[in-house]
């Protein structure tokens, strides 16, 4: 029983991070048909923003020393700002470009961000000590769950509920949903393209910053490439979920996270190093079964 609980929390916590990542990517794809590969680099950027620029191995925290109540909003703001800036400086000028061009540019932007970090912080991963008491375990029904794991799950849940409220109950949310479905029609009804897209980027940046905070606390490491693996898995999740479907992105993010934890536990010892081969085989099967994704958005079919 306790073992099952432990696995369940592991699965949920890993899945949560992927779900947040997938959501950030799906939001942008929804309004712009852009797969933003720089998303992973926003995550790293937010983490490094806490540190004093230096090439030493041990990081000197700068704003990372602030109390949580200040640090968290500042990091979230930094995430939103870098995301909105990349929209204004790069993606806005590519709105009518084809999706491949936009995607390549997002790769390029990602490399630029990475190399800016490289210049100021060197390529070596740095130890970073953020709220270390969060790794202490708490007991739930006999299972010892790290507090941070619990927090990750709760935070993800809160973010999902808040985002749902935002999308369903606010004017911005309504406009965003409409724009994601039919951008030109939404504009003909007065929806401002720039405002909707900037809002999507801001929210996406907030999500990246949340992931950065969770990862930095969890691993105790700041690494320039730390966002990449998350971004890749999150991208896969958005594709299986049906590009553009927000619930699809969240559910598939959770599923992939859960699957990777379960495979890690239940695969025979010899097969464990090949866990990802199993995982991605499942992804391929999934896409063969549903090429448009499991939750592909059903757009209004024209009927006469």
């Amino acid at each position, binding site marked *: 029983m306790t073992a099952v609980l432990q696995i369940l929390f592991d699965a949920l916590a890993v899945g949560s991070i992927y779900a947040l990542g997938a959501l950030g990517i799906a939001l942008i794809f929804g309004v712009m048909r852009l797969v933003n590969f720089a998303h992973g680099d926003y995550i790293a950027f937010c983490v490094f923003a806490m540190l004093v620029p230096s090439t030493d191995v041990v990081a000197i925290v700068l704003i990372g020393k602030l109390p949580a109540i200040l640090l968290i909003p500042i990091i979230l703001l930094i995430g939103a700002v870098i995301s909105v800036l990349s929209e204004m400086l790069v993606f806005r000028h590519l709105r009518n470009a084809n999706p491949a061009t936009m995607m390549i540019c997002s790769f390029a932007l990602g490399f630029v961000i990475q190399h800016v970090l490289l210049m100021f912080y060197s390529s070596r991963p740095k130890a970073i000590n953020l709220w270390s008491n969060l790794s202490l375990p708490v007991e739930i029904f006999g299972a010892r769950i790290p507090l941070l794991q619990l927090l990750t799950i709760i935070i993800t849940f809160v973010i999902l509920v808040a985002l749902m409220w935002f999308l369903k109950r606010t004017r911005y949310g309504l406009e965003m949903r409409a724009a994601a479905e*039919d951008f030109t029609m939404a504009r003909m009804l007065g929806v401002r393209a720039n405002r909707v897209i900037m809002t999507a980027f801001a929210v996406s940046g907030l999500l990246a910053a949340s992931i950065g905070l969770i990862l930095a606390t969890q691993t105790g490491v700041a690494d320039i490439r730390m966002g990449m693996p998350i971004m890749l898995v999150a991208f896969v999740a958005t594709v299986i979920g049906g590009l553009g479907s927000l619930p699809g992105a969240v559910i598939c993010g959770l599923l992939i996270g859960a699957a990777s934890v379960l495979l890690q536990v239940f695969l025979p010892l010899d097969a464990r190093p090949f866990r990802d081969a199993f995982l991605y085989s499942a992804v391929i099967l999934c896409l063969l079964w549903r090429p448009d994704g499991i939750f592909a958005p059903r757009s209004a079919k024209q009927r006469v």
Partner: protein
Amino acid sequence: MSLLSVRDISVHYGQLAALRGVSISMDEGETLFVTGPNGAGKSTLLKAIAGAVRPSSGSISLADKVISGQPPEQTARLGFSMVPEGRHVFGSLTIEENLRLGTGIRADKDRIEGDLETVYEVFPMLAERKDGQAGVLSGGQQQMLVIGRALMAGPKLIAIDEPSLGLAPKVIDQVYDTLLKLRDSRGLTLLIVEQSSTRAMLTGGRMVLLRGGKIVLEGDARELANDESLRRAYFGFGEH
């Protein structure tokens, strides 16, 4: 000064010229029918006014402001509301969300609820299902929804691309009744694309006939509809 003035616009899709030097002008409270055969450029004309396609030459102004080259959301703010070809219902939004989407730009916020009631009165079927997803509506119901949605934006000028498409004759009558009522009570200006001239004849107003991207005939709808020259122009008889 006219409300809408389209001056000598041409629109190209790649090499193809969909409009070739079209000019129209509309006064406030006026009704203008645009008719013409398939591929004449009727829908393209509306899209150009809305800002969804960009004219390659010529200019368009609405309420004394140049709107050609402006984004669609700007044109909407000047009081232009459109029911485009193909309806473009937001299928994942509820019916009421569809109806309220365009109200964000209205200055007369106090009129929104009253207008919503009017739309629900004209199309009671929409009221019944207002919290349901719009994507599951039938074609005719979607047509009602997009006409209602365009009215909810509180426009000065409403442009409707083939309002009769997919609607039962009784409902078409209701739609036209509503439009004409709004025209008479609020000075709503009507720009209506119809393939046939039957409605134009019943309703009255002005009519232009488009063919091959050009206006080939223009005049009073009732007079033209009874005229042999309309049929000839429509089908292109007597031209070489």
